[in-house]
């Protein structure tokens, strides 16, 4: 019995949230059950993800391959739990659990009554399951389907709030994201036309043999993927939809969108670039330099635009644009240190940005204010919320002993290893700009006199969620050990270094 469960573990991790999400809508009348089911399935997912990651770590990166329906690889669809998959699965499970905990009994203001909140949870679990699927899938067309489901559930989450602003943001997001999906599907079609395979491993092998005959097709497919996923992941010049969408969404939705959904697309892009085209082709087509350049642009532009924003959630949303730049830059470095560092940075940013958005949501719903200068004296009235917000800000800036530092340190080492001093400089400037746009909020909150209003920390589940995330930010910074090891294995797998 345990053996059966063990072999089906990868598919269970993906299917469980999807299955539960469809059970929820008829249960809307018993909203308590809905909430406990959501938190329960997320908790189970976290346990399984930890178990899978432990297994991968123990076997030093030997992947667990699961063929759907028992059909072997070139014909059937594979779920490939390698070190990259286990790593991202762990990140997804670790961040979705506190976010769903935060949403418990807390949606009535932003989303509405039990029926609407249940619909919100349906979309939320759908997104969580799809992100887990993105971590494990090894099939090009599967990626397209997952990306589409993720897009629709993201847009649904953005439009969950009543009113025209949310609908406008969701519509713009939907149109641009569908344009991106079209490009991704075109890229998949081109790869299928020259390789005859949809399995990424087999497509990679076939492409290795034939790419010299079709250099233009390879170029076109690469750029289709880069632009398509770039739109969805809000890579700098293509980020226009992100600030509206992420700042108008309800708090838990902004947290999962900024923290995880954006990264899911980046993981898919990386899987395709490194898994199908492989490192030497990326080298031939100079994609490493393009990625580094786009990353640097995104860091500078995102940080400067974030500085210009007065609304707290918009500032955080633009900060996500900058952080996506770090992640893309790291993949462009193409050495173990850079790629491992960027993977770790991806994980730490997922935790930090969810924390910041949840804390910001708690601040906004307690005070009813949205501008960064309005939070004078909040630090004393809402000690837990503001404390966790400060911890996460320190982490995002990259102060030692907080999780952002480890990732940024490895990114710096990686860029020095390839001799790219400009990239190293931009990473440093990005950190300084990040301090400039986050620290004034903390200063206002602690060192300015508080008004007489009665502001309070949010309820118990929300506090628990915030404290869990805060501990994770510090924990990853003090003891990066196992996660960093997993990231290094994943980097070695991506770069095909034994």
């Amino acid at each position: 019995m345990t053996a059966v469960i063990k072999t089906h573990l990868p598919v269970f991790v993906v299917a469980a949230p999807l299955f539960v999400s469809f059970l929820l809508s008829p249960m809307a009348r018993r909203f308590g059950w809905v909430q406990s089911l959501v938190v329960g399935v997320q908790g189970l997912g976290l346990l399984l993800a930890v178990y899978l990651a432990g297994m991968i770590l123990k076997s030093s990166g030997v992947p667990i391959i699961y063929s759907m329906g028992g059909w072997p690889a070139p014909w059937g669809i594979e779920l490939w739990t390698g070190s990259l998959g286990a790593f991202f699965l762990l990140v997804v499970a670790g961040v979705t659990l506190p976010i769903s905990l935060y949403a418990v009994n807390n949606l009535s203001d932003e989303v509405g009554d039990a029926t609407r909140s249940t619909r919100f949870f349906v979309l939320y679990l759908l997104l969580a399951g799809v992100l887990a699927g993105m971590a494990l899938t090894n099939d090009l067309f599967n990626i397209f389907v997952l990306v589409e489901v993720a897009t629709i559930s993201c847009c649904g989450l953005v439009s969950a709030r009543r009113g025209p602003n949310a609908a406008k943001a969701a519509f713009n997001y939907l149109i641009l994201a569908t344009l991106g999906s079209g490009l991704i599907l075109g890229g998949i079609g081109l790869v299928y036309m020259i390789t005859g395979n949809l399995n990424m491993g087999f497509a990679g092998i076939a492409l290795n043999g034939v790419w010299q005959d079709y250099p233009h097709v390879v170029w076109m497919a690469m750029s289709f993927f880069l632009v398509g996923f770039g739109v969805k992941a809000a890579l700098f010049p293509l980020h226009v939809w992100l600030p509206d969408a992420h700042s108008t969404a309800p708090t838990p939705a902004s947290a999962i969108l900024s923290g995880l959904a954006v990264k899911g697309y980046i993981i898919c892009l990386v899987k395709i670039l490194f898994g199908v085209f492989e490192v030497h082709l990326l080298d031939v087509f100079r994609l490493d330099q393009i990625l580094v350049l786009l990353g640097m642009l995104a860091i500078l532009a995102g940080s400067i635009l974030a500085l210009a924003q007065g609304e707290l959630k918009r500032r955080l949303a633009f900060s996500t644009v900058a952080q996506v730049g770090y992640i893309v830059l790291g993949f462009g470095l193409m050495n173990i240190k850079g790629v491992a560092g960027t993977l770790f940075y991806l994980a730490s940013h997922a935790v930090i940005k969810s924390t910041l958005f949840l804390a910001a949501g708690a601040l906004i719903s307690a005070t009813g204010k949205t501008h960064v200068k309005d939070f004078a004296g909040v630090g004393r009235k809402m000690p837990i919320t503001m404390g966790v917000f400060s911890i996460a800000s320190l982490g995002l800036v990259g102060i030692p002993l907080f999780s952002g530092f480890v990732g940024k340190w490895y990114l710096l080492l990686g860029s020095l290893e390839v001799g790219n001093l400009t990239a190293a400089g931009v990473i440093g400037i990005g950190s300084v700009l990040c301090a400039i746009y986050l620290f004034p909020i903390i200063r206002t909150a602690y060192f300015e006199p508080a008004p007489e209003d009665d502001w309070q920390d949010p309820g118990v589940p929300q506090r628990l969620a915030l404290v869990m995330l805060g501990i994770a930010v510090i924990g990853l910074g003090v003891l990066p050990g196992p996660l960093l090891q997993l990231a290094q294995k994943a980097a070695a797998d991506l770069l095909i270094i034994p």
Partner: protein
Amino acid sequence: MKILLGKVLINYPYFAAVILFAIGSATVLTRSNLFKKLIGINIMESAIFLMFIAAGSRRDGVVPILHMDDSLRPYINPLPSALMLTGIVVSVSVTAFALALIVRLYRFYGTTDAKRMSDIRNGVAKE
């Protein structure tokens, strides 16, 4: 030149796909009417479906269903057609969702034009 023209003529479905794709994405990016944007998205997706189907088809190919008598005749590759069924389902659901959003926006603004919507919104902000 003659060879190039011949290639284009033989691969005319791809040529059509490229033209449709350009029309679709230009419509999405330049039109401010939300319905026109949505139509543009649908044209663009049709272009990609056409490209996929063309990749799977072959001249004089038959339906890939096995009969005893004509099993030796060439048949088309069924995989791209099957994939595009999924693609069409996805595109229909995106369209439905976008239409629902347009209805919600129209109820509030009384227009389906993105420019007029932002005018109205800015006007509200000034008051």
